[in-house]
């Protein structure tokens, strides 16, 4: 089962290594990971998406909780939460098809951030479904490159740490 973990950690060098090393050592594959400082500059939030069965998942969260650099772990999976990701698509767009591509971008409230002779770069944010839908549409034009931030998530009810 997919789990969305929001891990509040010390904002210090080495902390990300510890978290990632621990997850890797116990044999889990990380689907997505993103990290950034929080409202408190001494703390960072790591959003991790892992796929794991219950027993393994319990073990991983307990082990993470044991790390001295970890303040708190929230599993957002079963709560109402908002999930976002930012994606940059570099899409084939020769002059004659450029407007079609721009139209798709507009449809998804994405914006064109760079224009080349035969390609466009589109910046899009949103949920997994929205971005997937957009990617599928753009594929027919030929996607030259995709880069993504990894997902970040936040709970809807204000159960803040």
């Amino acid at each position, binding site marked *: 089962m997919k789990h969305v973990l929001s891990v509040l950690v*010390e904002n210090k060098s080495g902390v990300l290594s510890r978290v990632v*090393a621990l997850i890797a050592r116990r044999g889990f594959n990380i689907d997505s990971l993103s990290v950034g400082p929080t409202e408190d500059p001494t703390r960072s939030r790591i959003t991790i998406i892992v796929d794991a069965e219950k027993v393994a998942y319990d073990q991983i969260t*307990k*082990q993470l*909780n*044991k*790390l*001295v650099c*970890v*303040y708190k772990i929230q599993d957002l999976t079963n709560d109402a939460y908002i999930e976002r990701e930012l994606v940059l698509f570099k899409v084939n767009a020769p002059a004659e098809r450029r407007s079609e591509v721009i139209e798709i971008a507009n449809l998804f409230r994405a914006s064109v951030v760079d224009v080349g002779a035969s390609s466009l770069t589109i910046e899009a944010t949103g949920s997994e479904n929205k971005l997937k839908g957009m990617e599928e549409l753009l594929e027919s034009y030929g996607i030259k490159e995709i880069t993504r931030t990894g997902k970040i998530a936040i709970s809807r009810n204000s159960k803040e740490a």
Partner: protein
Amino acid sequence: MSEEKNQRKLVTVAEAGAPIGSGSSNPKQGERMTGAQAVVASLEAEGVDLIFGYPGGHAIHIYDALFDSKTIRHVLSRHEQGAVHEADGYARASGKVGVALVTSGPGATNTVTGIATAYMDSIPLVVITGQVPLAMIGTDSFQESDIFGITIPIVKHSFLVKSASDIARSIREAFHIAKTGRPGPVLVDIPSDVARQETVFEYADQVNIASYKPTYRGNAKQVKAAAALIGKARRPVLFVGGGTISSGASCLVEDLSERLRIPIATSLMGLGAIPASNPLNVGLVGMHGSKYANMTLNRSDLIIACGARFSDRVTGKISSFAPDAKLIHIDIDPAEIDKVRMADIPIVGDLRNVLGQLLDQFDADAQVPDTEEWLSDIELWRERYPMYDKRLDENTDYIVPEEAMRLLSEMLDQDSSIVATDVGQHQMWAAQFIKRTKPRSFISSGGLGTMGFGLPAAIGASFACPDKTVVCVAGDGSLQMNAQEMATATINEIPVKVVVVDNSALGMVRQWQKLFLNQRYSATELHDVPDFVKLADAYSWEAERVESPEEVPAAYERMLASTGPYLIDLRIPRDQSVFPIVAPGKALSEAVGAIDLDEGVVRIVDQPEADEEGGKAL
């Protein structure tokens, strides 16, 4: 004994984590000094009086500051691995935090096996490593190694200190973290320019780490539920691991056992926690545990785990381990709960607190189990399946390791001796036959199984307990992995005794080859090199070789009477096996080589999943 027993008082994390030294009232508080001096002042304030180490370029300033310390004795080991094992042996024997100090690069990487050994066995250590100057980190400068990164998976926590003003706080936190909660090694990496910076020394008494709050007190509802479950059990067993020793809960376990008439079984790490002479103690379980102890654990209907983690060396095949048992799992580390075996009642807390809380329940009105039938079954098994029977080796003219260990056990004063071991067959014979009465009197690398641990650990233990006789039961392979530490013993007048159970082979591996790999003895012969007596002599030890059984008692006598370090090269035949053995991956009930007196004085092979009735002769 009575001290612990009568004081059923609550242990708190603040108490457990406080410095044993002067803390903030240390005489150097508020002084301006260099980072290196702050390292030494911190150790002094912490109450450290002994550290093991090895200097080098990036530790040189800390060593320089150490030169002025009036209270800290530094022991120059002969290898950084030795230094860490010595600190570890010191910690295991004393219950205090062991401290090692080494330089950057190769000095730091040489500590890795020592740190991993301590991590696996939850031993509190603070390892201080010199590091290249801050600005040179990451440039592959001379003797740079990313020891912080290298040790991430094997430390409880680590610090890379970036400013001299952080030294005191980092070291205070390192000690607090090392010895509270589930103990473990903590690394403090100090760049050499940080050691030269100036700072004002301020040492704190308490630390407050928002993200580190171990649970000390058991949940009252869980404790109550546990008491109720115990009351209803018919075949309960207390399963004692290393956590019983580190929390100092031995007497409480005994108390509970005696009051409720519940038998006790111990893991390798739990040996010594409960006197071997306690009639309710069935002793060692697991791969080389006795058949009766394994039956006790495996047939129980309730396991009360006290600081034990259900290692695969204990459980054998996990799916057939103790199939009828419910589990009350008491551990200070929540991650141990449900890791290997699902707990019916988990209780997270310090064992001393939780057992005290449990005893309170029985002081009140909790129901007490009726275990008399269970205990008499166990007694029958104990008689029927003894760990060893002399008659097996009658008329032999060679030294029988079981007998040699039994004799050593008899000749040691239980109250004033410590036994340390290396890793291999000799370790298991020592665990099976050397009877221990006191916690912290049996020291062995359980989790990592580190060959070469024994001698330095024995040296560390001897530093911790100068009044005790410390004997290292070593293997001829293992001893060679840290034999250089013989010099450390000589120079510091540490009178450790080493009994090399010398089979000219990597015996344990060879035993597996013999039993499981068609006697294909790949790379397990050691030949008769070196001559251990001459080797000991080169280090100015007394030493002798013993080759026949009748010489053994007098040799032990000479060894125990000697005032300095002493080595006995105890020659045993190459192809002895440790029995019983549960093959890796097999169920605990499928041991090979237990003795069944109902079949005669013979070793038997258990049939898969069969009852005690069905063994076939080996």
